[in-house]
């Protein structure tokens, strides 16, 4: 047990390191910053696995050793406990040597005294075994049973965690309003974190985002984020409708779908004359705000890429979903929160040249030429060669003229999709662990022996006992028990 204890404390110590050093799986950007700021220490941390303590070989090693030492400790204890449960309480040879001992003389025959004592002990929930003129009784075996249940459940919990995390995965799905996302390896946004034994069995179920709503208080404190979705079976049929909000995930085919993030996705169309080159909602992101500026006051950034135009055309866009907030912040010089769309505008800069960066959200302008700039409002069209704009339909578009329109502003929702088949095991283990803990801590084991010896007319009732825990409480319990045994055995003759 001491080995297991030391290993458990080592685990705690390792966790301290894990909470103080930035962890790669939780915050990769902080790890990167740390390595830039402290190159030497960063190198050491990287080699020691401090940036991923909970996935490092030594953390796994400690856990494995803990499991082994627990099993080695629990197997013999469990065997002994089962043996103990099967065995009747054992008679004692001498009973006057126990910490608690009392003698009473009662006016009855020994067999009757023993029979009534047995009844009393049974009523008090003792397990009793009887032999000629003697009783052995014990109570509180639940303590050991509870302790064993607690420790085995702890092991089961570890097994559930390893199974669930090992065969599961978690990823992010980005869905724009009105569009459908399908569960498949290629459709996740960014990397999918897969367990070691994940077999790549994606389900093919779909999520159609009908509407995303975000509401705020006037201070900018968020009130609610909710994605109204249709859940679709792999064949496209409707499986159900759900509102996914923080704390209220949706479930389908073993997948759990959580509200994770959101953003603006302006619909952008690019035409060459009448020919439509590009038409899609482009999900925009935000930079992290400088100190003192709320995230909601920042504009949104995105790009549109057209590799087929000349040697390549890239459009950088900066969206202000609320143009009056933008004007107000220009006037006052203070950031203004934008909690909803209101005459959105985008500032654009066009670049010509080869599109080197394959990512759909960023543009590598190092080898590109800056071409034009301008401002586009929702419902207007701009000539990309000049940057001049007009209301949709108020001017004919000449053949070959390169134009961009901004017909609509939609929102997108980022959903976290994960599967963990170990959850029911872990939950069951946690409940069992708690159930075992209560008797393990709060019950105490105690043993009592009774011997009845004939003494002239009456019987001497000798009672001995001890408790393994809560000894001071047992003293009181014992004296009450002896009084009750005496009463049950008949009239009081005398006490010695």
């Amino acid at each position: 047990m001491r080995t297991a204890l030391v290993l458990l404390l080592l685990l705690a110590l390792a966790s301290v390191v894990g909470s103080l050093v930035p962890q790669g799986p939780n915050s990769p950007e902080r790890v990167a910053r740390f390595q830039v700021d402290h190159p030497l220490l960063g190198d050491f941390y990287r080699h020691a696995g401090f940036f991923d303590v909970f996935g490092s070989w030594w953390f796994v090693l400690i856990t494995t050793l803990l499991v082994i030492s627990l099993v080695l400790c629990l197997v013999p204890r469990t065997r002994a406990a089962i043996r103990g449960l099967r065995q009747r309480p054992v008679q004692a040879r001498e009973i006057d040597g126990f910490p608690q001992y009392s003698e009473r003389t009662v006016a009855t025959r020994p067999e009757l005294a023993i029979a009534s004592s047995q009844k009393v002990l049974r009523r008090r929930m003792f397990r009793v075994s009887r032999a000629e003129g003697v009783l052995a009784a014990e109570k509180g075996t639940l303590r050991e049973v509870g302790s064993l249940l607690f420790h085995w459940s702890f092991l089961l919990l570890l097994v559930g965690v390893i199974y669930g995390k090992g065969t599961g995965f978690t990823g992010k799905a980005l869905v724009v309003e009105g569009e459908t996302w399908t569960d498949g390896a290629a459709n996740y946004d960014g990397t999918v974190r897969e367990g070691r034994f994940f077999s790549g069995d994606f389900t093919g179920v779909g999520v159609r985002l009908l509407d995303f709503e975000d509401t705020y208080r006037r201070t900018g404190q968020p009130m609610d984020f909710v994605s109204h979705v249709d859940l679709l079976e792999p064949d496209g049929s409707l499986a159900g409708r759900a509102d996914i909000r923080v704390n209220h995930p949706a479930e389908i085919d073993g997948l759990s779908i959580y509200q994770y993030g959101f953003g603006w996705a302006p619909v952008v169309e690019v035409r060459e004359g009448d020919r439509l080159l590009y038409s899609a909602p482009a999900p925009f992101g935000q930079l992290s705000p400088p100190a003192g500026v709320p995230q909601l006051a920042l504009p949104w950034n995105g790009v549109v890429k057209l590799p087929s135009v000349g040697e390549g055309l890239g459009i950088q866009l900066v969206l202000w979903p609320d143009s009056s907030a933008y004007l107000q912040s220009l006037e006052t010089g203070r950031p203004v929160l934008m909690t909803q769309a209101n005459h959105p505008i985008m500032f654009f800069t066009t670049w010509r040249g080869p599109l080197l960066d394959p990512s759909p959200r960023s543009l590598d302008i190092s080898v590109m030429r800056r071409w034009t700039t301008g401002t586009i409002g929702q419902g207007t069209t701009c000539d990309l060669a000049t940057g001049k704009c007009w209301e949709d339909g108020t001017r004919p578009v000449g053949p070959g003229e390169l134009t961009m329109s901004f017909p609509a502003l939609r929102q997108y929702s980022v959903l976290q999709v994960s599967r963990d088949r170990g959850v029911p095991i872990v939950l069951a283990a946690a409940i069992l662990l708690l159930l075992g803990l209560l008797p393990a801590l709060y019950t105490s084991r105690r043993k009592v022996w009774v011997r009845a010896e004939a003494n002239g007319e009456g019987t001497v009732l000798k009672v001995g006992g001890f408790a393994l825990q809560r000894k001071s409480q047992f003293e009181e319990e014992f004296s009450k028990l002896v009084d009750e045994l005496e009463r049950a055995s008949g009239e009081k003759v005398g006490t010695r």
Partner: protein
Amino acid sequence: MTPHELHLARISNDLFNVALFAYIASMVGYFAYLAFRREVLRIGAKAVLMFGLAAHFLSIVQRGLAAGRVPWGNMYEYSSLLAFLAVLGYVVIVEGRYKSRTLGGFVLMFAVLTMAIAVSFFYVGPGPLVPALNSYWIKIHVVAAILGSSLFALGGGVLTIAYLVKDARERREAAGPAARPPIMGASIDLADPPYYAPGADDPVGATGSTDGRGILPPSATLDRMAYRTIAFAFPIWTFAVIAGAIWAQEAWGRYWGWDPKETWSFITWTIYAGYLHARATSGWKGRRAAVIALVGFVSLLVTYYAVNLWIVGLHSYKGF
């Protein structure tokens, strides 16, 4: 916020201040009692304490009414409830169950510090919960966490410190000029039958009446109180961690992600698990076990303050 709610919030704040000053006065009273041994001081301190406790309770209720939700939605409210439960735990467990009436000053010191920090650094007006906290799990997980924390603070902090102080004094006295033999229970004779070995909750150190001069309870009593309080808190804390994991599964899509709060609540759990095991194994009792309990208390403070304020994670609730 309606004027009515503002009014309730103001009443809540006033009652909070009343409770804080009552606790300070009562703390002074308890310490004065330790110094001067006048029974009237103790009775007065207890009366002021009960008055403060009542005001504190009303303050928490008013706060809940003003915000229209459970009154433990941010660090200010959490701290207030934590202090309230620690004081209540003292009154019920230490004074009620163990009839030990001299330790009030120590627990009030904890309560006063917690409340003073809360009102000076964490104060925010009552308002609705941020979406991440808006779940019925806040009623289950957070209540268990506060209850477990306050009991750990009482058992692992206040009572353990009192035990260590008293134990040191008893040792000094025992090792007096005549070089007396070690205090009973400090060593175990292996020749004894196993049932003579003390159980996990049996007191270590001198028992009862050897204490002639000190006014604190004998170290054996303090030791037992500390153990029982921690043994009471441990399953509650275990439940809090489990409920938190269930909530995390619902809110963040994973029941455990080594977020700093999760990590530190696990560390605290581990240390107290170690303490309970140490008590059950001979050789790690008394002072050594008390040191583990104290380390657990420090870990608890880190779990609450450091993780919420300085270590960035999903539980960084300051400001909401």
